[in-house]
């Protein structure tokens, strides 16, 4: 019974720490990427079971990264949770249209995120 890997693509260090701490006592293994490019590379190398994608990223935007992942055979089926900005209306729909499996608006409750993670990639 191997643990599942979650990839979190987020440029803000504090936000990454929140998710790191959140998953400490779970069996999930967390890998982190600070931007879209690194995220896509990590996804292709490490084949995570679930990807958390922040929408507001520098350089390659979160939406573009999701589209790129959907266009790549290795990551086309991986569940992706888009972390959207509450401020931008239509962000949620754009995330869905880009291929996100689900979305959660920021600021989000860490426990809400954990529930969503568990529903898309159950710990075994």
């Amino acid at each position, binding site marked *: 019974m191997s643990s599942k890997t979650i990839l979190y693509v987020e440029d803000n260090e504090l*936000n990454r720490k929140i998710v790191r*701490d*959140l998953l400490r006592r779970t069996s999930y293994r967390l890998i982190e990427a600070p931007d879209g490019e690194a995220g896509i590379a990590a996804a292709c190398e490490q084949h995570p079971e679930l990807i958390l994608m922040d929408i507001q990223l520098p350089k390659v935007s979160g939406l573009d990264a999701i589209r790129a992942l959907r266009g790549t055979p290795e990551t086309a089926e991986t569940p992706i949770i888009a972390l959207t900005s509450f401020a931008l*209306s239509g962000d949620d*729909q754009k995330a869905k249209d880009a291929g996100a499996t689900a979305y959660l608006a920021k600021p989000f409750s860490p*426990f809400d995120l954990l529930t969503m993670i568990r529903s898309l990639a159950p710990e075994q």
Partner: protein
Amino acid sequence: MENRDEFGELAEYVNKMSAELNRLYAELRVLNEDLQQKVQELEEKSQQLEIASRHKSDFLASVSHELRTPMNAILGFNEMILGGIYGDVGPELKGPLTDIQDSGKHLLRLINNVLDLSKIEAGLMELALADYSVQETVERVKNSLRSLAEEKGLDFVTAVPEDVPLARGDAGRITQCLTNLAGNALKFTRQGRVEISANRRGDALVYRVADTGIGIAGDQLATVFGEFRQADPTIATEFGGSGLGLSITKKFVEMHGGRIWVESELGKGSTFAFEIPLRVEGAKTG
């Protein structure tokens, strides 16, 4: 001879008219050049306005992002502490930590309200129109506020007929409006019930939030949707809030092409209602 005089007169007349015409043509040319210059100035001004508007929009988005990021950390870490992620939390800490969480959430609501209002007043707010379920929307609002109702021991019910068809509008903003109205209703009601209902009225939808709360005095009803008012300044201390929520709710309702109103009796309760088209096709930018 008569004929020669007539011809002479005619020739002189034609000459005069010709000179007059030339003069008018010259004037017209000058006016045209003037007009061209004015059009060019207007185009430049228009471009400048577009750039300024885009700057304003970028500024608002950036401020919004910057304000929310530390809030995310404050609320996120605090929620995890309360949830035992870092170890057991002694009973004496639960109270203060919960107070921090509540204050943080309140602050976030205020930030969201101020940012929304700024965006609306800058004319940069847009609706995200899509099909949505009225039943699901009302349920979602009820679920998000249920714990507040339970804490205060209030009945909290919804009433949406099953046959209300699929609607079209900005579900996110409509949820925001209903959450604002229902949140206020729960806040200003000491005992009794709050009901959220939605009914079809021809091409329109009427949403209502009715409470058995403290009510609003007749002479205050007219200003209740104003930005900085809360009906009675002494109430502000007991019930809290900056009064921005109602103003924003009114603007979102109007952006949907609807209208909002309130019926109330001091000491008996209030019903806030808004009517919007069942299906909004085009939207006004606010």
